[in-house]
């Protein structure tokens, strides 16, 4: 079964966030299902729903985001979608 994960990007709004983050995803052959951005408690927030074949790849992907995180001062997290299902769906 294919798992889905949520990528959340939180930080100061600036030029190039979407391009840099999605470049890393496409370089790693990750498909994006859905994408949205908004301002949450004064922070720029981008949320993407992605396909993930093997949950153990999450850690690798998380590491690849590190340079972007430090370059743009962002906080990027990847979480399996199940946790959102558990919290918000009965």
């Amino acid at each position, binding site marked *: 079964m294919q798992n889905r994960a949520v990528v959340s990007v939180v930080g100061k709004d600036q030029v190039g966030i979407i391009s840099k983050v999605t470049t890393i995803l496409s370089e790693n052959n990750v498909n994006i299902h859905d994408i949205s951005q*908004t301002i949450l*408690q004064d922070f720029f*927030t981008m949320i993407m729903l992605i396909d993930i074949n093997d949950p153990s790849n999450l850690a690798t992907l998380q590491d690849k985001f590190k340079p972007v995180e430090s370059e743009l001062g962002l906080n990027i*997290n990847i*979480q399996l979608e199940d*946790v*959102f299902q*558990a*919290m918000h769906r009965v």
Partner: protein
Amino acid sequence: MPIAFTEIQETIRMVEMEHLDIRTVTMGISLRDCADHDFEIVKQKVYDKITSYAKNLQSTANQVAKEYGVPIINKRIAISPAAEILGNASKEQAIELAETLDKAAQTLGVDFIGGFSALVHKGISNGDQVLLDALPEALSNTERVCASISVATTRTGINMDAVAKMGQVIHETATLTKDNNSIGCAKLVVFCNPVEDNPFMAGAFHGAGEGEAVLSVGVSGPGVVLHALKRYPDADLGEVSEVIKKTAFKITRAGELIGRVVADQLNVPFGIMDLSLAPTNALNDSVAEILEEIGLERVGTHGTIAALALMNDAVKKGGAMASSYVGGLSGAFIPVSEDNGMIRGIEDGALSLSKLEAMTCVCSVGLDMIALEGKASPETLAAIIADEAAIGMINKKTTAVRVIPVIGKEEGETVEFGGLLGRAPIIGVNQFAPDKFIQRGGRIPAPLQSLIN
């Protein structure tokens, strides 16, 4: 139904900004099969069993926390009450067993191991006596070993001989660790009606009704509840209860999912979810501040008990709906040193020891992490335990005492325990002696279960 972005945002906000976390995953391990006539073999078996069952506890919990993006703060071990395997041992051997447990915890990188425990609510067996005698040294010689003693239950009454002994044990432990702010007492809990599946330290142990090994999860999140309430400043109290209930539901669901994944990967059964609002010294991660958000100028003032009762009940209702295996102590913890709001309540003169006692009638545990003046006598400490046990016995609930008489400090001073244990203002005790009452000994009979007004 697909997840909406607002829901994703809510979860992210809870974790990133409001301190939602899995407070602890605690592996319970039975040590009953470690009994042997040769004590060297007992120690080896205990060490081997703990370090093999929990070998991957840290790494698995860390991995799962990363995958789901919800931090797991503590990974801990609870063993079956150590007194069960100390029947033939000497006091020195009991201390060696505590040191063995400490070593096992250190090997595993676990900060606390609970269950250096005895259940003496009705009587004291040989093994129990050995453990009680060994406690002060065992707690001062080790860093990670936590002890709990059951001295009363609703069905058996209060064993006042054990209560008197615990007054002495706490005093002696405080004295042995006086160079370190009597910190040994922070690892010792005296219970009435203890639960067998509590994952939270220092009172965790693996009860007699439990299986070989089990993984229980404690979830917390006072910060999440506080922020949820802040969004409804004008709600009436029925709506306040509703907000807390819904928040508790969501927190519990996240905890159960993650707990089950960890248990599955470690190949042990999932035990229970304990949803307890347990504060930390982080900003806004305070139970007292929730009570203040409900409408009290300062925790401890009139109305505190009613607000706490409302909150504790709403937490349980939300938790019970979210998981079929809610257990442990589920409710609200009110440790003083670990809650910035409680500390402020005492410093401002709003919160007293008497009010804290009264609060334990309606919340999940008891007098917790309270620093007392060092001159409190063993009899006074025992009488504090007796009062708290009586509250638990009559109200058919768990109560506990974890007080730290800080040797050399007086009322009004502040003591720093450091790390997770926080800091606490020293509270004075009543200056009149309960000595005769404690010296009488014996057992307070179990209470009537009908005519309950």
